[in-house]
Structures are given as structure tokens and as C-alpha cells.
């Protein structure tokens, strides 16, 4: 985070030093894009907040921990695809799952679907990429995540 702030400040100063007018143009463009995205982003974040309240961490651990084998992988893929959990929460959850004896493939499928597939952020993704591309990317990533899980199961 600090790095990003530093890079942004340095870039803005460098840019200002070279050309003020172009810099202001760039900043305006960036901010405009941000404010265009803001309403849909806030809606998604509100949705996710409600979702996480209805499905708390303990429920996720319970869901994934109770079953193993193909059923466990199916549940992991579904939970991972729908849930929008930031990495700093997801990895501790995955760690708890591992300690509880949940198999590596299940944890891997959970993590990979979580970071690659975003059902709740789909409205934002469609805004940028169009329906076809967004659905394709999520669908392909879903199967990709299953493959990663299976490979991890073979090697770990």
C-alpha cells in the first residue's frame, strides 16, 4: 500500500515537472473513470457485506470441513466462486481448514475459485468486458480452478 502511494506521488510529480497541462488531463481522466465505477462498486460492496453476514467464516469452515472427496471439492468450488473474501481473510481460513484436516485439493479449489472466479463482482466485470467475455472468463477460470485442485491433489 505504502509502495502504491509512493509510486503514485512520484509519478504525479514527474508528470507535473514535464507538462502540467497533460498531467491535469491525465488526473481528470483517471478520476472520471473512478467516479463512473463508484456507484456499481458501492452496490457490490454492500451486497458482499450482507452476504458475509449471512454466511460467516464459521459457516464456510463448517461447510468445507464436513465433507471430503468429490462432494468437498464441489462445495469448495461453489463457496469459493460466490464468496468475495479478501486474501488477508481467505488465507487464514484456508490455514484453519488445513489444520482441521481438510484435504489439499479442497483447499486449493477453494483458494483458486475464490481469487479467480467472482460471481458477486460479475456486474462490474460485465461493465468492462461485456457479458460474453465476463461469463467466459469466469466459466473457464472455474474449470481451471478444478484442474489446479486436482493437480495439487496428485502432487501433495
Amino acid at each position, binding site marked *: 500500500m505504502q509502495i502504491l502511494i509512493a509510486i503514485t506521488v512520484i509519478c504525479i510529480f514527474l508528470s507535473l515537472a514535464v507538462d502540467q497541462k497533460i498531467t491535469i488531463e491525465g488526473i481528470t481522466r483517471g478520476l472520471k473513470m473512478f467516479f463512473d465505477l463508484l456507484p456499481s462498486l458501492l452496490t457490490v460492496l454492500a451486497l458482499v457485506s450482507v452476504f458475509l453476514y449471512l454466511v460467516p467464516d464459521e459457516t464456510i469452515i463448517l461447510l468445507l470441513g464436513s465433507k471430503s472427496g468429490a462432494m468437498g471439492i464441489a462445495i469448495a468450488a461453489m463457496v469459493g466462486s460466490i464468496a468475495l473474501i479478501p486474501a488477508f481473510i481467505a488465507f487464514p481460513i484456508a490455514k484453519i481448514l488445513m489444520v482441521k484436516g481438510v484435504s489439499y485439493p479442497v483447499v486449493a479449489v477453494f483458494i483458486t475459485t475464490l481469487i479467480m472466479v467472482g460471481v458477486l463482482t460479475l456486474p462490474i466485470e460485465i461493465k468492462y468486458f461485456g457479458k460474453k467475455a465476463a461469463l467466459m472468463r469466469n466459466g473457464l477460470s472455474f474449470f*481451471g480452478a478444478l484442474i489446479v485442485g486436482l493437480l495439487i491433489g496428485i502432487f501433495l
Partner: protein
Amino acid sequence: MIGKNHLKAYFWTILFAIFIIGSLALSFDPGLKIYANFSEFFLEMITFLPLMFLLVGLFDVWIPKEKIEKHIGHGSGIGGTLWVILLATLQAGPLYGAFPVAYILSQKGASVRNIFIYLGVFSAMKIPMLTFEIGFLGLKFSILRTLFSLPIFITIGFIMERYLDKDYKVTT
């Protein structure tokens, strides 16, 4: 300067805000918990995304299209893919932060394949996230997951390129 369109766009946000203010006033417990979740996400988003967009805006005005086209555009080959992978691993933040970057790369002429490889690598192989993953899940798990993921992202890139229109562009 709040027009009808603004109100419409923020409809759900306003509804949510009313719900939260009501919950705070009445100490409605589910509402308070939802608010706690929301403020956590909101803080993550608001500290990070405006900076990202400032960089995207500067990138837009300074980097000429020809440069991007030449390095990661059509026919840039394996070198282009390596550039995109390097760019994506050096970033941080949630996946929705990668969308504006994908947009600007696409507008500047990056190929469809490289756009989607970028998104994949961003989602699963960012170095800041990897360090975190290694800390929790161990080196072996993290490295295997990364190694297996990369070819899948490259494959997804090729498939997307095959099935999307030739002149496909990311928009806003």
C-alpha cells in the same frame, strides 16, 4: 450537480445507507455487523482504487499507443506475454482493481490474449499476495498452486482470443 442519473446510479447505495443509519440509530445487531463488513471493504477500496485510477489516467496520457501495441499487441508473441506476466505480478489489490488497467491496456492496443493472461496472473500470482499465502499455507503449496495456474491462464488467454471478436475492446 446531482442529477437524475446520479440518483438512479446510487439508488442501492442510498437504500443501503438508510438501512445502516437506521441500524445505528436502533442498535439493530445484524445491521451493525453488516456495517462493520462494509466499512472494512470500503476502506480497502477507497485507499487503493483512486490511486490506481490516477496511475491509469497518467498512463493514458503519457504512454503512446504504438508502444503498447508493439510490446503486447497482436503478434507480440511470447515476449509480449512475458511483459504482461511481469506487470501483473508486481501489482496488488483485489481483482476489480485490475479491470481499469485491463481497460487502458486494451484501449492502447494490447491483444485479447494478453489482456486475459494479465487478469489471470493478477488474480492469482501477485507477489504481495504470494508472500502472504506462503506465510499461511507454506512454500510448497503456494509454489505448486502458482505453477499449475500459469499454464491455465495462458490457455484461457488463447481460448478468449479465439472466441471473441477480432476487434474486441474492453470498455467502461
